[in-house]
């Protein structure tokens, strides 16, 4: 079991998803129980992996499929960063479980198996040790995400989903072109072997290698939604069902994860004078532009879903800029910000779904003047609870916590993460200072946008009767925000782990030696 620990996070969701498909729609209890068991087991596996690689004596756990040597066979590698991302994904899936199960009254296709396949693709992408398997797992997670984004299709959802699919198919083709260019120059796709080969590439083919890496990078930047490649994101996420959009919060982070890994492994300080820090400037200024666009979009958003979508852009842009700076302290802060912002954005997508249910009020804009006929929809749904303050108070409290974490205001974990991200940027070059200023400004604008929306929802509209709160989704929101609060109290151990992770990423020799002994 412990020898095969690395392959379980991929095999388990695959098996469970297949089994759920066989069980079908009628045995919902068994399907739900299987899904819950799988999510719990994935959290357990991720914790076991994290403890194993965090112990220090073994910097990266390597699993050779079929026991072939790494240069020829397929390897799965789990270092500290992979283990962290696995844990984040598993925890998010587990926290979103109540909201997915709470919806089972309404039939609408096999959601649970798709979630399992999405988890399989995500875990595989975090564990893949070579570029081609990264491509395969990306396709697995994208195929599952197409199905989830189109769950219970309406005209708006199908149109947004179609754009999403076309953009991602194109990005996958760029991915393949980049992979084959890199293979043509170096003759290998194993990431550790590539890291060894990059400093030794002859000068006449180095330009080709850089072109391949740049094309590959564009494919990931589409996923990470860097401006101007992220135009599809707010629309798709706003149109997707709330629990699905919450799960998608981790998907932009996959792009950031790969960019972080590849830029530090292949083009870190040890890549030789010609290739060191290749693309770092693009990531930095692209991230800055993304934050700026996200802030403008956030201030102009007229729907809660879009507001959450632009929050994703801001978070993604901050992370990309931080990756572009390539300093260990900034990377550690960026990882903390990645974890906290993923949890908070997921909670915010769920809250948006609770406050303005999308199936009922497609495209309802909250900042319009009060419209009695539109609001009658909500009153019908929930006459028994009308005037009850408890659910509204719960939602408002969650909204407040969410806003504090997203804006990075003290005393919650959003502040700690932003502080860890921003403090090392001071005293850097002009790019670092610009990014610093923009992230601070983005925090302020988040406060403005969230305040305005909160006032419109909770105070301004006296006649607005809240829709019935679905217990499952409320439970998910509370779990996610409790995690954010827990990270505030117990910040020390995670931050130490993240500092070690960043140090390991910036000194990839251990990773290379573990994969290619």
């Amino acid at each position, binding site marked *: 079991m412990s020898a095969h620990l690395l392959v379980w996070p991929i095999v388990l969701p695959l098996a469970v998803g297949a089994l759920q498909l066989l069980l079908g729609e009628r045995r919902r209890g068994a399907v739900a129980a299987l899904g819950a068991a799988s999510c719990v087991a994935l959290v357990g596996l991720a914790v076991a992996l994290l403890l194993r690689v965090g112990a220090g004596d073994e910097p990266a756990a390597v699993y050779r499929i079929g026991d072939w040597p790494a240069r020829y066979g397929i390897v799965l590698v789990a270092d500290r960063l992979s283990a962290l991302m696995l844990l984040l994904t598993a925890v998010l899936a587990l926290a979103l479980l109540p909201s997915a199960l709470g919806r089972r009254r309404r039939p609408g296709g096999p959601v649970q198996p798709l979630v399992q396949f999405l988890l399989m693709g995500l875990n595989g992408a975090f564990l893949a040790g070579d570029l081609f398997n990264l491509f395969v797992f990306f396709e697995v997670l994208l195929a599952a995400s197409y199905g989830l984004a189109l769950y219970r299709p309406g005209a708006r959802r*199908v149109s947004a989903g179609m754009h999403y699919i076309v953009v991602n198919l194109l990005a*996958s083709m760029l991915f*393949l072109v980049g992979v084959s260019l890199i293979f043509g120059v170096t003759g290998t796709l194993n990431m550790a072997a590539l890291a060894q080969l990059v400093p030794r590439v002859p000068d006449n083919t180095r330009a080709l290698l850089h072109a391949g890496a740049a094309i590959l990078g564009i494919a990931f930047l589409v996923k990470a939604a860097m401006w101007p490649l992220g135009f599809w994101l707010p629309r798709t996420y706003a149109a997707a069902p709330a629990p699905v959009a919450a799960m998608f919060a981790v998907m932009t982070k996959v792009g950031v994860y790969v960019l972080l890994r590849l830029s530090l492994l292949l083009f870190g300080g040890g890549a030789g004078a010609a290739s060191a820090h290749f693309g770092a400037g693009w990531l930095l200024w692209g991230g800055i532009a993304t934050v700026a666009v996200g802030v403008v979009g956030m201030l102009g958003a007229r729907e809660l879903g879009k507001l959450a979508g632009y929050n994703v852009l801001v978070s993604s842009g901050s992370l990309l800029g931080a990756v572009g700076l390539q300093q260990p302290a900034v990377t550690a802060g960026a990882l903390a910000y990645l974890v906290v912002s993923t949890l908070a954005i997921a909670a915010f997508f769920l809250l948006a779904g609770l406050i303005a249910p999308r199936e009922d009020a497609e495209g309802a804009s909250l900042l319009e003047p009060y419209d009695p006929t539109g609001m009658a929809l909500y009153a019908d749904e929930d006459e028994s609870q009308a005037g009850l303050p408890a659910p509204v108070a719960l939602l408002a409290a969650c909204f407040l916590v969410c806003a504090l974490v997203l804006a990075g205001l003290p005393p919650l974990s959003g502040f700690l993460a932003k502080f860890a991200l921003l403090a090392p940027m001071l005293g850097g070059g002009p790019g670092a200072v610009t990014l610093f200023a923009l992230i601070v400004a983005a925090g302020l604008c988040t406060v403005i946008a969230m305040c305005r929306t909160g006032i419109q929802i909770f105070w301004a509209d006296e006649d607005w009767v809240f829709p019935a709160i679905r217990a499952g989704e409320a439970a998910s929101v509370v779990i996610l925000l409790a995690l954010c609060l827990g990270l505030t109290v117990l910040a020390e151990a995670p931050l130490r782990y993240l500092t070690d992770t960043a140090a390991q990423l910036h000194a990839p020799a251990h990773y290379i030696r573990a994969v290619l002994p």
Partner: protein
Amino acid sequence: MELVLALAIGVLAGCGVWLLLRPRTFQVIIGLTLLSYAVNLFIFCIGGLRTGADPVLRDGADLSQYTDPLPQALVLTAIVIGFATTALFLVVLLASRGLTGNDHVDGKDGTP
């Protein structure tokens, strides 16, 4: 042979991009298909072109007489995945046609 292949890839990719930018969903899917042909050919030729060479090794053979088998394995995987995702996209295209009543990519027909 290299020149012919390069021209073929270029023409396929060019047609694919042009079709991809058209407003009808059917043109978009044909464009995506052409682009994926171009990408598959590109992967296939990245290991170097060679006529009549064997990718599977036999004992005691001269390695220089063999063609690189890895791009062939890669292209096989890419073809399978590309085919599957295109089929999926076709379903979405039909759903969009059924829901909106036209085949414009934005779901509303603004152009004549």
